[in-house]
């Protein structure tokens, strides 16, 4: 089995997780910028965090042969402070040329507030002006349906947004069709209690197909499982999905979306699917 983990907050994980993910078949990890679990007190905190994402984490991942990529932003959980948000938005462009930066994310909404919407619009504008791809976070639980609709409105209002270069993450049964019908990519997050179980994820795959879907674990400092994607692949096997279909969903799909940024490169010779080799 081979897979790409397109959404993992590795700064919150121990080094053993890199080793375990590599052993399970992970071939690349992508890390969206996230909330630290507390509000950072100044723009300097974000500068250091962006250095961590673009310098330190790639070195930590490389010990296990894993390419590490990232997305940059101020998380919607910190968007109530508009002054701080403006300061953080101002330093992001200086990081965009770094070799592992894929785009702007994970931006979006948390509690669907006016300030969150304003900061989301500024992030979208920044991404469009710098021709960056976008990774969107949709809110949790009772706020997800409303937030997803507000996010789609914001994206549609900016004429520079190309839906094929935007992924809207954390979809569930009540939001997946909203995202796919609007032409965006959709991410299903496998997360205990608050997001999606492997069985439900596979239900959605069977109903909506896999054309513009990916799976991710979104592991962070909370209760989460860095191996959620390969475990769901095993569940797919149990449900009768072929090796080819599984490979398409957990390896080829993220590679196809992320590969729209030429900086996303992984060693294909090292990533040949064992089942492909067997077929040859």
């Amino acid at each position: 089995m081979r897979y790409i983990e397109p959404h993992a907050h590795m700064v919150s994980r121990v080094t053993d997780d890199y080793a375990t993910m590599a052993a399970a078949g992970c071939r690349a990890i992508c890390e969206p910028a996230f909330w630290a679990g507390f509000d950072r007190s100044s723009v300097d905190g974000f500068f250091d965090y962006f250095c961590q994402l673009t310098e330190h984490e790639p070195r930590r991942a490389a010990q296990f042969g894993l390419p590490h990529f990232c997305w940059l932003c101020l998380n919607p959980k910190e968007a109530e402070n508009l002054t701080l948000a403006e300061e953080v938005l101002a330093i992001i462009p200086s990081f965009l040329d770094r070799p592992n930066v894929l785009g702007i994310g994970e931006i979006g909404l948390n509690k669907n507030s006016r300030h969150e919407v304003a900061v989301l619009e500024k992030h979208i504008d920044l991404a469009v002006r710098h021709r960056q791809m976008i990774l969107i976070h949709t809110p949790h639980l009772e706020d997800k349906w409303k937030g997803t609709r507000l996010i789609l409105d914001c994206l549609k209002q900016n004429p520079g947004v190309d839906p094929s270069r935007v992924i809207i993450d954390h979809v569930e049964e009540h939001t997946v069709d909203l995202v796919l019908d609007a032409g965006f990519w959709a991410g299903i997050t496998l997360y205990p209690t608050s997001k999606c179980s492997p069985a439900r994820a596979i239900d959605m795959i069977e109903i909506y197909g896999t054309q513009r879907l990916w799976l991710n674990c979104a592991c962070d400092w909370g209760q989460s499982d860095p191996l959620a994607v390969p475990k769901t692949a095993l569940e797919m096997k149990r449900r009768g999905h072929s090796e080819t279909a599984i490979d398409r969903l957990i390896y080829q799909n993220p590679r196809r979306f992320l590969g729209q940024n030429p900086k996303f490169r992984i060693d294909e010779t090292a990533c040949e699917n064992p089942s492909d080799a067997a077929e040859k």
Partner: protein
Amino acid sequence: MDRTRLTDIYFPEARSRLIDLAAFLDRIDRAEGQDDFRLKSLRAALAELAAPGSDKARKILLLLSDPTAEPVAEAGAKSAAGAWSRF
């Protein structure tokens, strides 16, 4: 995959979760106090679960969602409760 095979795979887990839910409601009934918006939402969702028809996961997620359309004035708490507070 046919119904029997899916039942083979998922029945034990579904049964376990069903009993956990039943025990949770018993625990709530033994405790003093009134249902808040979360329990009221949960009881409404249980009615939806027992109603005929499919698409139950989507219907229950919508039942537990904020149905309004306008952004709120301030974010307030960062965390979500799992049900709409004005249910």
